[in-house]
């Protein structure tokens, strides 16, 4: 299949876009990466995702697929000759999907909450605690999923690794910007070890943004969208 058959609309900073890129890398699929300009939405994006107008959008043979986790599952189901991304056992799949949904519905919004919502020390402390609680749950889940391997998916990275790992760079940026420790070796040793393995994986390392580059991007974004802080 030629490269032009597979297009990904996205942006390098987006963790959701990263999910799709990691999945495509796992399957060794060549694709055209069409980066959206920050603050602008291309005609192609508006046409391909009229419902949400958001990235990522995978366009395969001119047909669009939206929502990052749906894209990852699609990639897994189309390119069957590559390594599997979802576990093969239905119960394991249900567990992987459960935690991925938890991450999207509860955990990542609380990470975002630290930078965007929390004003003053008390609120910030609460937001940090929420994030920490989520990580502890995932820390507990790890030995139940990994079957002795380095990843939630076992020997190789899988669906849940991708669902969580895509946020690691943003997690580090949030730590730096707010002077907090979120991924703590003392509290979540499994996750810290996992994070190292994840970031150095061949399918991940070229698409995971460098923390400093992302930090620079975050500062620009915050300056653009946030009201100036009160004195």
């Amino acid at each position, binding site marked *: 299949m030629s490269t032009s058959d597979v297009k990904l609309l996205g942006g390098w900073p987006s963790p959701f876009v990263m999910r799709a890129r990691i999945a495509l890398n796992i399957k060794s699929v060549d694709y055209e990466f069409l980066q959206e300009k920050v603050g602008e939405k291309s005609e192609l994006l508006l046409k391909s995702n009229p419902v949400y107008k958001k990235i990522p959008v995978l366009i395969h043979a001119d047909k669009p697929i939206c929502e990052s986790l749906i894209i990852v599952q699609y990639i897994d*189901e*189309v390119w069957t000759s590559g390594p599997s991304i979802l576990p093969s056992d239905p*119960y394991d*799949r*249900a567990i992987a999907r*459960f935690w991925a*949904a938890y991450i999207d519905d509860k955990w990542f919004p609380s990470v975002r909450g630290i930078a965007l919502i929390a004003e003053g020390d008390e609120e910030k402390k609460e937001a940090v605690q929420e994030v920490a609680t989520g990580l502890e749950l995932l820390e507990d889940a790890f030995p139940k999923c990994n079957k002795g391997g380095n990843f939630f998916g076992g020997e190789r990275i899988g669906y849940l690794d991708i669902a969580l790992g895509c946020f690691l760079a943003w997690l580090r940026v949030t730590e730096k910007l707010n002077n907090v420790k979120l991924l703590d070796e003392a509290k979540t040793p499994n996750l810290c070890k996992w994070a190292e393995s994840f970031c150095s994986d061949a399918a991940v390392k070229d698409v995971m943004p460098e923390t400093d580059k992302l930090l620079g991007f975050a500062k620009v974004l915050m300056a653009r969208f946030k009201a100036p802080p009160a004195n």
Partner: protein
Amino acid sequence: MADEVILLDFWPSMFGMRVRIALAEKGIEYQYREEDLMNKSPLLLKMNPVHKKIPVLIHNGKPVCESLIAVEYIDEVWKDKAQILPSDPYQRAQARFWADYVDKKVNAVARNVWATKGEEQEAAKKEFIEILKVLEGELGDKPYFGGETFGLTDISLIGYYCWFYAYETFGIFSIESECPKLIAWAKRCMEKESVSKSLADPHKVYDFVLGMKKRHGQE
């Protein structure tokens, strides 16, 4: 060894209905256990410690939480009849997208249709109809969202149909006049035994919502 299947549920829950429908579609025998959400059972708290919510499907002692995840699980385990997700990956992605759309969009707004008053309620009604119209647009002239066969998206949305009477009565509006094709679709789904046996009685739902409003000092 025979399968042991238990469903922890709450009779008016449109999320619980999704799992009931999937189980019925597959002809799976199961134990239905009604939860009192004001007094959650130890079993529920043990099986869903993270969210403490229904529905929870318990298969041979192992819990599956989150209604759409449970529906996909049911489809994957009991794969020999009444396929819920299509076989084609692109169709599957579409089915998942629209089921997810129902989850993201319908619930929060639907609640405001009955739980609020005045301007807030008017805004909720307007948004609710807009969302239903998007779904109606996606349905088009197909008998079901997936085409010829009843599937995931249909299952994700149909439970709300037994709540429409309550929404319409408290919101003083007619969903059918705004979205006739969607109502026609709902009636078509209701012709299936798996659906009609899984949905709650709209009048009982109305009484339930009335009770909730009274408890919150709204009536």
